[in-house]
């Protein structure tokens, strides 16, 4: 056993594309495992919305950047004797490797638990890894560098066609492509050599199967593979972008075990102690394979494998790090067997990614070798059809399953050959048009087995469509439809021809189906496919079975909590924290907590968190199924974000007991019209707005309130298609786009206040009386989505008058809506006016933030209220808090090629962090450094391109400070003139489109600039083009970028006046 008492764990920081909630799961499990062993744990993670940064998980928590600089400071303060690097994604791993290379770990005598750092380095370095694999006779996808066409042809003689040609040293895949013969190779190589003196030739594995194994090894050299997974999408599509199934479906036993034994061989040779992921390409025409990648840490795939099998990979990996053998760790599910085994599944899971590409300007929708998805779902069924249809609904992007959708694909063949996030919809349309499985396979390279299974779903739709009415569906056909994962909604839509509300149709199907005795059953996930008895509470629902695995108590002592579904822009780990906090409180109060959720990247879907976990859909149909089986005390809909919130009214109408705020009140807050009328009657101001369906009315309304205006569709969380328009032209353009939206939802036009402050209140009320609240303010002016804004709590710069009025309005609203539970109101404050812009009768994104800053769990109190306990008001006001919390947003623009990294009314951030400081600027500096900013290098310069006259003024002091600190300032023309006029010297850089030098782009690409302040000025084409180029180049060359003048100014103040060296290294509990 490792002799260590104090262990440092590195978290993964903010959620970003490629590094999401899965590391909250893995870190939380590891910390729990370490505590079980009596170890003292220290966590560094600035992601305040996570479960792992909550009380009771680690002994000490630092909300600080996971960078070598800060980690060293924590090491000096805490003197840990060991460190875990494998539980915080690539962020923690990179930081750990850097600490090792800098000699810091050695200097402070800190032992790395689990896989040694050298082994990690061997897997991270492509050359070293390929060499190592070659030595042990394992084939890798290796590329060969060549300097001329003859060399290229020679290489191909060895590796065979088809090959991929890549130009070395270029960004964005210039000059790359596939070649199937000498002619194509000559042509492409010639072009590639024009970009680069060297090209890389690689065997093309396009269309091969992509297979993954999760391997665990202990210090005694025992190896197991916990799970294998098969990508539905062929190689060429990143595994994070692929639909993934577990276990593999199309591999023979020979192939399964061939790849399994190679994975074990690799893991032994690398020297893993803990968990490792091995990715393969497998030839669909033979058993030839290539190793693509090895991840010597917990990964997104391992989180998925963990949820797919019920095997607690992260907890086991942590214990192996402490020196246990696999034979010594109990199987957490069966309790009677050991962790040294390989789970047997008697179900199939499907992982489906969730994209939000529609939220970004300019980004390509094609999916390929880089990851763009922001979240994922996992669905469980006993047939592929059942699982995939569940999953497509879970993703929440307008699909009701594989069939019954109204998605249109402009060019079907193009879509099938060039997949996007709509490819599954395209396949169904292709079946409708008579495409065969063979033809689709030729176009998509998706294995025929998957396509045939999808066609089964399609063929059943045709059978259903033949039924003239519900009563004409034969019992056997209806059962078959349910076994293939059809929802009542889908069946209703296909069969019931009357023009009635589809939700009503679904309920009719439900009634008819129940009359025929067609009901789902509950099955357990027990890791051993029923071979041994297991006391597992990990459940899913299926129609492919006749018997329930569990009994139901019906004692009124259980409470259902609805989870938050797939992470997406606008709804992320913060709601998982809320759900877990509710579950904990429910259990504390002596009830059994039942969680329904389907997001594999969460802590709420760890079966040891709750009394029962239904890993299943958050739809009316499924929640009713579970409600009818469990007959609980009630359902909590207010801790899971917008998905449960939207279900509230539907559930209420079906007689479900919604705990807390009445469903009618939720509807009143959600429905713009009703809410507005309520505000009017209470004398509460809102920005003027109108819901309009006629273009003419829109123009006359705009004439009335004046430009700019905000236009958006109703009933969406983060306002897709929402934008501010500043001119008549823009309005016309926007309306052209909105026309598509207005058929289903009218366009909402709202007056837009410029330079208004945005303020939020997070509160909890009991029967309309506020019991606790927190008021925070945004650094940016309104116009930046509240999910992208930098939020300060307690608010530091509000008038007392404003605060008093916020409290008064909130009281009125709480009372009128008879709120019992969490809620959030957003205000615009300008001069002496205060207007309400949004009100949500549910926990908001900032609940974990304010709960952790105040050290008072808002959700805990809300849950007590929802379960009927009388609570005392929380005594402290924010004036009592003598420190400041600042929440910053994390953007993932680097992953989204060509996307314009500019902020607007639509949310674009993928995650957030929050840090605590003794004052506002210290907290802001920590927070900004935690989302990837860095103190600009003095040997380089700062580029300022300060936009409109107002933002130029906003940045004047900041520019002066930079100059005084000794930074070299670069500026674009207008900005330079303005600075000069104010006595600040700067070097002019020309706009990208002038072609003149010195040009901004050259300075950026030559890394002469280490911070870019680019404030968009107006929406003219030239401004947009030039601004976009500057912003995009900054992102592509990894140069920190700020596009908001208020934030830039505050940040520069913090950099110049506080400085990193003066930041205090204090854990949460010392504030």
């Amino acid at each position: 056993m490792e002799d260590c008492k104090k262990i440092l764990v590195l978290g993964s920081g903010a959620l970003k594309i490629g590094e999401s909630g899965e590391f909250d799961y893995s870190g939380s499990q590891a910390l729990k495992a370490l505590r079980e062993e009596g170890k003292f744990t220290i966590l560094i993670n600035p992601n305040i919305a996570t479960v792992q940064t909550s009380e009771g998980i680690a002994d000490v928590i630092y909300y600080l950047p996971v960078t070598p600089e800060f980690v060293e400071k924590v090491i000096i303060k805490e003197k840990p004797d060991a460190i875990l690097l494998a539980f915080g994604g690539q962020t923690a791993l990179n930081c750990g490797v850097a600490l090792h290379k800098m000699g810091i770990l050695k200097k402070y005598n800190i032992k790395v638990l689990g896989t040694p750092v050298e082994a990690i380095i061997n897997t991270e370095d492509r050359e070293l890894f390929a060499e190592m694999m070659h030595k042990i006779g394992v084939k890798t996808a290796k590329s060969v560098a060549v300097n001329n066409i003859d060399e290229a042809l020679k290489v191909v003689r060895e590796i065979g066609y088809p090959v991929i040609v890549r130009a070395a040293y270029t960004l964005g895949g210039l000059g790359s492509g596939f070649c199937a013969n000498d002619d194509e190779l000559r042509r492409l190589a010639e072009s590639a050599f024009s970009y680069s003196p060297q090209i890389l030739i690689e065997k093309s594995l396009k269309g091969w199967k992509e297979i993954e194994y999760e391997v665990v090894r202990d210090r005694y050299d025992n190896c197991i593979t916990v799970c294998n997974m098969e990508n539905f999408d062929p190689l060429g599509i990143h595994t994070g972008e692929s639909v993934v199934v577990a276990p593999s479906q199309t591999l023979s036993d020979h192939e399964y075990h061939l790849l399994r034994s190679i994975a074990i061989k690799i893991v032994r040779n690398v020297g893993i102690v803990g968990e490792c992921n091995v990715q393969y390409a497998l030839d669909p025409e033979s058993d030839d394979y290539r190793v693509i990648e090895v991840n010597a840490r917990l990964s997104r795939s391992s989180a998925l494998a963990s949820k797919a099998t019920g095997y607690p990979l992260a907890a086991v990996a942590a214990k192996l790090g402490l020196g246990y053998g696999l034979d010594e760790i109990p199987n957490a599910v069966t309790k009677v067997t050991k962790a040294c085994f390989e789970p047997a599944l008697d179900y199939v899971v499907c992982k489906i990614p969730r994209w939000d590409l529609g939220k970004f300007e300019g980004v390509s929708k094609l999916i390929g070798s880089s990851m763009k998805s922001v979240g994922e779902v996992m669905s469980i069924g006993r047939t592929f059809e059942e699982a995939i249809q569940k999953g497509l609904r879970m993703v929440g992007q307008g699909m009701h399953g594989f069939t019954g959708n109204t998605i249109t694909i402009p060019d079907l063949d193009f879509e099938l050959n060039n997949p996007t996030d709509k490819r599954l919809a395209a396949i169904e349309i292709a079946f409708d048009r008579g495409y065969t499985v063979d033809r689709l396979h030729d176009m998509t390279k998706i294995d025929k087995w998957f396509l045939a299974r999808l066609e089964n779903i399609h063929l059943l739709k045709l059978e259903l469509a033949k039924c003239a009415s519900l009563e004409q569906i034969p019992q056997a056909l209806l059962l078959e439809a349910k076994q293939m994962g059809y929802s009542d909604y889908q069946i209703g839509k296909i069969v019931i021809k009357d023009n009635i509300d589809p939700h009503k149709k679904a309920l009719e199907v439900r009634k008819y189906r129940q009359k025929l005795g067609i009901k789902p059953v509950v099955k357990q996930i027990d890791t051993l496919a029923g071979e041994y008895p297991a006391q597992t509470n990990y459940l899913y629902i299926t129609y492919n079975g006749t018997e329930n695995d569990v009994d139901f108590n019906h004692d009124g002592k259980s409470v259902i909590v609805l989870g938050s579904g797939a992470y997406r822009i606008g709804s992320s780990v913060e709601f998982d924290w809320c759900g877990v906090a509710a579950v904990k409180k429910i259990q504390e109060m002596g009830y059994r907590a039942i969680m329904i959720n389907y997001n594999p990247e969460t802590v709420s879907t760890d079966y040891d968190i709750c009394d029962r976990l239904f890993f299943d859909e958050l739809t009316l149909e499924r929640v009713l199924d579970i409600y009818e089986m469990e007959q609980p005390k009630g359902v909590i809909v207010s801790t899971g974000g917008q998905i449960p919130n939207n279900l509230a009214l539907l559930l209420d109408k079906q007689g479900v007991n919604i705990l807390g705020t009445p469903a009618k009140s939720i509807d009143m807050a959600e429905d713009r019209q009703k809410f507005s009328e309520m505000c009017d009657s209470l004398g509460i101001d809102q920005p003027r707005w109108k819901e309009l369906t006629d273009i003419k009315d829109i123009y006359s309304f705009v004439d009335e309130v004046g430009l700019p205006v905000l236009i958006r569709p109703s009933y969406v969380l983060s306002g897709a298609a929402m934008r501010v328009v500043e001119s008549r032209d823009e309005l016309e353009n926007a309306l052209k786009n909105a026309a598509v939206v207005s058929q289903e939802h009218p366009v909402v036009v709202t007056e837009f206040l410029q330079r208004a402050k945005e303020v939020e209140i997070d509160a909890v009320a009991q029967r309309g009386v506020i019991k606790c609240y927190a008021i925070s303010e945004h650094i940016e002016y309104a116009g930046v989505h509240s999910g992208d804004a930098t939020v300060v709590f307690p608010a530091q710069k509000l008038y007392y008058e404003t605060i008093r009025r916020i409290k008064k309005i909130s009281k009125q609203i709480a009372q009128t809506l008879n709120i019992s539970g969490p809620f959030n109101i957003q205000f615009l404050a300008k001069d002496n006016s205060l207007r309400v812009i949004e009100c949500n009768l549910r926990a908001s994104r900032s609940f974990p933030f304010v709960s952790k800053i105040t050290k008072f769990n808002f959700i805990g109190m809300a849950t007590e209220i929802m379960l009927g306990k009388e609570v005392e008001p929380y005594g402290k006001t924010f004036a009592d808090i003598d420190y400041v919390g600042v929440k910053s947003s994390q953007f993932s623009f680097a992953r989204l090629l060509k996307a314009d990294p500019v902020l607007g009314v639509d949310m674009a951030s993928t995650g957030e962090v929050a840090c605590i400081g003794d004052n506002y600027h210290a907290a802001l500096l920590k927070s900004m450094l935690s989302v990837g900013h860095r103190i600009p290098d003095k040997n380089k310069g700062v580029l300022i391109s300060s936009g409109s006259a107002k933002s130029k003024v906003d940045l004047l002091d900041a520019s002066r400070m930079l100059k005084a600190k000794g930074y070299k300032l670069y500026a674009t023309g207008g900005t330079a003139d303005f600075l000069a006029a104010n006595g600040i010297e700067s070097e002019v850089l020309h706009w990208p489109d002038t072609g003149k030098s010195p040009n901004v782009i050259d300075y950026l690409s030559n890394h002469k600039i280490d911070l870019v302040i680019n404030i968009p000025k107006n929406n003219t084409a030239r401004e947009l083009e030039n601004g976009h180029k500057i912003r995009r180049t900054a992102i592509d060359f990894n140069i920190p970028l700020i596009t908001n003048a208020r934030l830039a100014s505050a940040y520069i103040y913090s950099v110049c006046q506080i400085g990193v060296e003066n930041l205090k290294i204090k854990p949460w509990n010392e504030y």
Partner: protein
Amino acid sequence: MKKAILKLADGSEYEGLSFGYEKSVAGELVFYTAMTGYPESLTDPSYKGQILIPTYPMIGNYGVPGDEKTNGVSNFYESDKIQCSALVISNYSERYSHWDSKKSLGDWLKEWQVPGICGIDTRALTKKLREYGSMSGKIIFDNEDIPFYDPNQDNLVAMVSTKDITTYGSGKYKVLMVDCGMKNNILRCLLKHDVTIKRVPWNYDFINEDYDGLFISNGPGDPAKCTETVEHIKKALKEDRPIMGICLGNQLLALAAGATTYKLKYGHRSHNQPVLIPGTHRCFITSQNHGYAIDDKTIPSDWETMFINLNDGTNEGIRHKEKPFFSTQFHPEASSGPVDTESLFAEFFNNMVKYKNR
């Protein structure tokens, strides 16, 4: 698809749909939890007389390969035919996909006149069988009822063992293979070494044969039925020529040494069974398929436990303390299943080398 009824000895009935041959059959119901390997399992002679229930719900996904042979041994099948009496699954993949598949699972079952039914809640069935141990069952077509059948009353080994003597390979070291229902992959694993294998029937008296190593194969049913084989092994134990046994072979070796066997409450039928070398932390994941086990307490003093099952502590192999005799309850030849313990064949081979060059 035609309807069929699965009847259990406890009186319960399940309705399924036929995708294989349509005839009523009876047998012993057994489940296995492996997620791959149905062509291997169906041709495994150890399943003789049994109605097989894979717990993985979708079966038939990758079709069935052809029966091409190398060195007289089928490339993909574990014997020359489907051995089990019937197959009961949850969901059938009529449309299969694999580069080396030649036919669908349903067509293959029809070819060998073996029924296959789908649409059964195999998890519910598995839980029931787990609690009852094994149970008799029958599949009824067109109300053509037949009596239940307990295969363990028959000498199954005699039914599946080879009738002829066959030689494989032309290597230096001579292996005498006692075929009690041997899986072909045992041959394939041995043939990777410099050996010649002489395969003989289960009751063949081999003691005067010229061989360097004795191999006792796997096979179906109750080891107590193989008294003849046990008598022959007893004689071999008096000598020093290396012996290796697998599964039923393990039990027969134990019986010959003087230990006893018993029927397990929960049989082991999966690819994920962990076995431990006693006194160490060394574990292996193994493929298993057995309902009987050696009673550890009855192992004679000149023998020792070689492996134990990490889940339930039952015996997984024995070894003679001085002589080169060992056997395993699990299947180092895998097929189907993990290949982590294939090195045991090398150990057997090395024992032969040592013996011959002593």
